[in-house]
């Protein structure tokens, strides 16, 4: 493990990572992820696909909430826009799925500007309430525009392929989602070390100071809204392709809260944290069930109230993380690393 960090040129300062060890481990992780379908059974692979899709959504939300500091409780609304846009593009307009996914993201990004522009003046609490209200309105429109979206009967997406990979619950969908995650991680990590990324962090830290440094707040806030929602829309499109049947009820309020829980658990503001949080939160119901099974015989109490147990555990986790480790798993990792490097000196 390296013990010091000094860079001598600007190029190296803004490089994705200057550390060959990081690159090596990333390559190992990627190779492992590519090999995964060879080792896992059907349901486990479907779960890993969900993890990857959740990671895309969490990275998207992180751009808005973690990096720019604009709290959004309306994630589920944007996921719904992306999912329905993708589904309708494929079903009604016969757009090839490989184009439908980015297009659905773009449509969601543009739709988010409708909410972003009037809420530019708001921040903190009021923005959270507005985005919450917006998500309720979006879901309401989807439910009642039955001619377009099927309303309460839902939307069924025909079996199509993305570059030869079949959608649904199989290795094909896994590779589609994995590609999306890799592209989004690269895109956001690159964006974070660009002018826009630094502007967003400045707005989060102190918007008035950022303004006086010459950052056009309105423009960069809207850009954050657009980029974040585009990524979230892509996550929604992937959800639609995985489920192949969507109704408005899939996109409940709990989905928004779960997305924020992913950020809090992983560590607000970092891409790696968002991915870690997604892994943790998607596997949380399974872990809770395993834990319950230890105390009760074969987990018979848990069977009827699975959803209730899941939301109680998620709520408790949010509160515990905020209280004990506000920087999330990434914070814990940084602390451990620093402790290790500095030992025996105090941190």
């Amino acid at each position: 493990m390296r013990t010091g960090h000094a860079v001598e040129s600007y190029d190296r300062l803004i490089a994705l990572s200057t550390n060959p060890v990081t690159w090596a481990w990333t390559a190992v992780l990627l190779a492992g992820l590519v090999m995964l379908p060879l080792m896992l059974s059907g349901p486990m692979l479907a779960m890993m696909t969900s993890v990857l899709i959740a990671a895309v959504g969490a990275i998207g939300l992180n751009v808005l909430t973690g990096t720019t500091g604009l709290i959004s409780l309306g994630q589920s609304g944007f996921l719904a826009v992306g999912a329905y846009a993708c589904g309708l593009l494929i079903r009604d307009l016969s757009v090839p799925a490989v184009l439908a996914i980015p297009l659905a993201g773009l449509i969601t990004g543009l739709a988010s500007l409708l909410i972003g522009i009037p809420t530019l003046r708001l921040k903190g609490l009021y923005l959270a309430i507005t985005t919450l209200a917006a998500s309720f309105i979006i879901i309401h429109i989807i439910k009642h525009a039955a001619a377009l979206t099927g309303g309460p009967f839902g939307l069924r997406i025909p079996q199509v392929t993305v570059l030869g990979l079949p959608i649904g619950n199989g290795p094909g969908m896994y590779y589609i989602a994995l590609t999306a995650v890799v592209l989004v991680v690269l895109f956001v990590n690159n964006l974070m070390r660009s002018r826009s990324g630094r502007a967003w962090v400045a707005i989060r830290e102190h918007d008035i100071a950022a303004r006086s440094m010459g950052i056009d707040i309105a423009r960069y806030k809207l850009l954050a809204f657009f980029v974040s929602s585009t990524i979230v829309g892509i996550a929604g499109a992937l959800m639609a392709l995985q489920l192949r049947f969507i109704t408005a009820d899939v996109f409940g309020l709990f989905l928004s809260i779960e997305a924020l829980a992913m950020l809090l658990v992983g560590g607000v503001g970092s891409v790696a944290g968002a991915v870690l949080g997604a892994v943790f939160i998607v596997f949380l119901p399974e872990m809770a069930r395993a834990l319950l099974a230890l105390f009760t015989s074969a987990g018979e109490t848990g069977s009827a109230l699975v959803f209730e147990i899941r939301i109680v555990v998620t709520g408790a986790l949010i509160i515990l993380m905020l209280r004990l480790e506000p920087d999330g798993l990434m914070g814990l990792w940084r602390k451990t690393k620093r402790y290790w490097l500095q030992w025996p000196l105090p941190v």
Partner: protein
Amino acid sequence: MDYLLNLVASGLVFGSLYGLVAIGFAVIYKTTGVVNFAQGEVMMFVLYFAWMVGSFVDAPLWMLLVIAIVFGSLFGAVLERLFIRPMLGKSQFPIIMTTVGLAIMLRGLVPIFWGVDSAPIEAPIKSQLWQFGPVFLLGDQVFALVVFLLVSAATWGFFRFSRVGIAMRAAAHDETAALLMGINVRRLQGLSWMIASAVSGVAGVCYALIIARAPDMWHIGFQAFPAAILGGLDAPLGAAFGAAVVGIVASLSEGYIGYGLKEISGFIIIIAILMVRPYGLFGEKELERV
């Protein structure tokens, strides 16, 4: 005309339910600067507990209200002490997320403790029919309206005349100055949670009387949001007035425009209000200094 009046009356009845919850929002926000996203869930939890205790002793309606108020204030004090006080002084995001986490915990705990079935609360008052001109109201609806008016008046009187209420206003206006004048601000913040939870308990009783006790009662918390925002989050009486407006608008839009608008009209009001007057009709404008 009769149709319009009846819609307005039913809007007022729902507005009074929203209003009781919205007063809870406003009391907490005024003294602590925290928006309690768990207000609807607190209401549900307090009502379920009161109903459980009440069904042991076969309690009449007034006793149910008393149980809800007593348990509500205890529950509020415990929640504040355990969850909110350790978070004070942190930034907006962790505090909001703490109340959100609390909300979904309570939402899951109610069905785990008391089951998922819904049932109305029976009381002799429900079978009465009141007539005001062309408007007909059931006894439980009149009850909710009267309770709402009483609670609003009590809230106004409390903040206007009582020593504690005035201290709360002082603490809300300038926390440091209030501290220097010898006001125990922390205790007031605990008290505001007690008041808010007790009022939500009352709201829960009215709700269960008119509709039913059900594990999705917490929805009314979101319906009360627009009311609190419209009236101004830091103005309890404004929140009560906002609730009446939101209730009437919801009822009229559903009656004249289309089914399903009742749930959504409040959120459209929120977005409109936040664009024009983010601090509400009666709230104080916040000045931001560098």
